[in-house]
């Protein structure tokens, strides 16, 4: 017993030394790039945020979309994150849009079956979309509010008619509201699934992992691996340890500080992908003193974005509300350049010296961001108090009740510019010109024109300093050297794994 304790004690001491000097491991598996794809392989992916249940229709959260869309559930169309979120066919083989932009005619794919074996019918599609439109508790139900009718003239065609043109409509169908379920399904969707995708959910160990198995009756190319284990590891250093110990084939949202440990194994390559994850410092545009543009501009000028990005590491600059993967993106870099002197002047002009402001931030984000802001703002005479709350509190206080000065969250959704055209959104940004441009951008049927209109609206939002876009998140993914075709972009909201293969030695 003495020896065991002595061992444990010395281990602790050695551990303390290692913490300052440790870099990698010497017993990790070597690179394996020569093997053939093994169809019986299991792909284990480490990720952080676990869904609270499996009911993707009624429960919000990016974790559900990440795990289930494209893998288990499908809609008529989907997006290809690695091709600028291009809209690609899924359960529809093709579609036509009438010149007036009101009628969408989809040709249904033949030979599609649900995981319970029953064949997909046009009726299933019509019922799914109709339910999503009519039932307000279905997530993103409002996306279909503009749909005037959903019908099926024959067994292989589904026609949707809109009340007014909406160029984003097809994109909307790639989201939750467009998912197709079996009509009158009796599956308990909280704990089980029944979709048409390349994988079925075979087991769910809550608090631990979700296991997907290849669906052999899949209509398209069968999945490249027999099984996918989504291993939920919320602690970022635990995730790195698991990767280093050889327990993972891939790890999302790698902690950049621990990158060298993972690289040191030689078993992973580190990739970086784009996202639509906009780290947004929201200003309460409705509340004094932030309803004064000079104050908002001063706060933006007080932030040295390049220095912040060096702190965050996995990020790039983003000025303006539209990220590069979305239509209407423009590189607005330089629109606000770090200038604390000008910030102090502006604050003095606005009569807002010695300001006291509160930043409400969910406690899931690292402390480095609020700490950086506190010192940046202190430098121009603004005292920032940081109020760290859990996400549920944030939803009530900031999102619902708009009771905040400054707020930080990451807006991960694609094409969410509409929030700036909605004065009742928590940003409280109310600008008639932006609303008008956004409405026009949706109503046109010309993609280039729509994109131009969005870019123009985005410039106004940026000029008005409606918020500050601290950075665009570009997370690191560790991908095993024996893994091929791992997706790259927007993995925080979509993780299509059907094409991924793992090679054996």
């Amino acid at each position, binding site marked *: 017993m003495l020896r065991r*304790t002595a061992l444990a004690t010395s281990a602790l001491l050695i*551990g303390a030394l290692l913490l300052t000097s440790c870099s990698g491991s010497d017993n990790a598996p070597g690179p394996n790039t020569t093997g053939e794809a093994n169809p019986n392989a299991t792909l284990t992916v480490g990720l952080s945020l676990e869904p609270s249940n499996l009911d993707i229709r009624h*429960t*919000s959260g990016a974790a559900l979309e990440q795990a289930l869309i494209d893998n288990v559930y499908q809609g008529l169309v989907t997006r290809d994150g690695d091709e600028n979120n291009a809209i690609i066919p899924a359960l529809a083989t093709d579609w036509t849009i009438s010149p007036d932009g009101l009628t969408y005619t989809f040709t249904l794919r033949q030979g599609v079956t649900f995981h319970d074996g029953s064949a997909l019918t046009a009726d299933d599609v019509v019922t799914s979309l109709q339910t999503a439109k009519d039932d307000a*508790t279905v997530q993103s139900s409002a996306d279909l509010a503009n749909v005037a009718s959903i019908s099926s003239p024959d067994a292989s065609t589904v026609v949707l008619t809109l009340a007014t043109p909406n160029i984003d409509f097809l994109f909307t169908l790639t989201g939750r509201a467009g998912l197709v379920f079996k009509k009158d399904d009796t599956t308990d969707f909280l*704990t089980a699934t029944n979709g048409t995708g390349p994988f079925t959910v075979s087991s769910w160990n*809550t608090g631990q992992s979700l296991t997907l198995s290849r669906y052999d009756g899949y209509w398209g190319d069968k999945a490249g691996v027999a099984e996918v284990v989504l291993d939920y*590891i*919320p*602690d970022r250093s635990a995730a790195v340890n698991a990767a280093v110990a050889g327990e993972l084939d891939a790890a999302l949202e790698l902690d950049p500080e621990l990158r060298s440990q993972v690289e040191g194994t030689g078993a992973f390559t580190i990739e970086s992908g784009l996202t639509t994850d906009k780290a947004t410092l929201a200003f309460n545009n409705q509340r004094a003193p932030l309803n004064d543009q000079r104050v908002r501009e001063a706060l933006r000028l007080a932030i040295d974005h390049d220095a912040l990005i060096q702190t965050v590491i996995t990020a790039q600059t983003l000025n303006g509300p539209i990220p590069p993967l979305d239509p209407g993106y423009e590189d607005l870099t330089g629109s606000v350049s770090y200038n604390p002197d000008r910030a102090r002047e502006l604050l003095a002009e606005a009569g807002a010296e010695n300001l006291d402001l509160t930043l409400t931030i969910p406690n899931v984000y690292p402390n480095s961001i609020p700490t950086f802001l506190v010192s940046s703002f202190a430098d121009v005479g603004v005292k920032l108090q940081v109020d760290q709350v859990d996400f549920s509190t944030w939803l009530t206080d900031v999102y619902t009740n708009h009771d905040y000065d400054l707020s930080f969250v990451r807006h991960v959704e694609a094409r969410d510019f509409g929030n700036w055209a909605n004065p009742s959104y928590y940003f409280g940004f109310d600008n008639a010109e932006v609303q008008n441009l956004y409405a026009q951008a949706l109503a046109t049927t010309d993609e280039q024109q729509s994109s131009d209109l969005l870019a123009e609206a985005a410039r106004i939002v940026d000029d008005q300093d409606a918020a500050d876009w601290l950075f665009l998140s570009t997370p690191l993914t560790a991908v095993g050297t024996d893994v091929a075709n791992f997706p790259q972009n927007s993995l925080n909201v979509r993780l299509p794994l059907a094409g991924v293969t793992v090679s054996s030695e």
Partner: protein
Amino acid sequence: MIRYALTRLGLLVLGLAVASALIFLALRVLPGDVAQLVGGTQATPEQVEALRESLGLNVPLWQQYLGWIGGLFRGDLGTSLLTGTSVATELVDKAQVTVPLAAMSLTVALVVGIPLGILSALGRHRAGGTALSVAAQALAAVPVVWAGMMLVVVFAVWLGWLPPQGFPRAGWNDPGAAVRALILPALTIGVVEGAMLLRFVRSATLQAIGQDYVRTAAAKGLTRTRALLRHGLPNVGLSIITVLGVQIAGIIVGAVVIEQLFTLPGVGRMLVADVAARDLPKVQGELLALTGFVLVVGFVVDLVHRLIDPRQREAA
């Protein structure tokens, strides 16, 4: 004795009743609600209200409380708002990780604490004893999280002997892997709790050494050590039983933290996730079960103490 046990049982029930009310009210003070989380950032206020209604959250508080207590009397701990599963079922499921973890931690704590505590007391004038005591002092002050990280760095990442995190997907169907997964977490809790126990055992032993009956036994020809072992330790043992009650509570708190760190799918991790999700019926069921467990341990400790300590029996 029976009267004592019944009084003590009455206190246990009263304790549970008070705990249930406190847990229920304390959770209602938390801002935010599950309907908001289920609805997410796309839901309109009307949608959230509809969700709140369908989840039964707009019922007056006293009705919710009575409904919960009524369920308890029928042996129903409640139902999760998010998954619709029974709290009791999920507790039993997660206890398969937490109970073995606690048992292993307790074993480590006992193995570390008792013999070393006695050794440290006996050797208090020697370097080894002092070193042990100092080490225990230091270890007892170590945050469990840090100790866990160190153990992971050495035994999992560096030496590669044990898994750094997680629990086998097959659970106890793969007993070898399950035990291996629990070794580092159990060591983490056990060493820290054991260090606390060590300090307690040391001081209790030192006290016993100074007692007249030990000195008398030594005067009758026993060595000091044998006198202590024969006559002193049974008395030390009694107080250790009491301390163990407290330690079991400490181990459970430690488990909540350590399950997070090691990503173990146990009661602690479930509790943290449920609080974040504002699944209050589930949280209150889990908290009540944990409180009940700690209270029952206290109850048993008191009864055992009384059974084996003749002085207390006479006093009654």
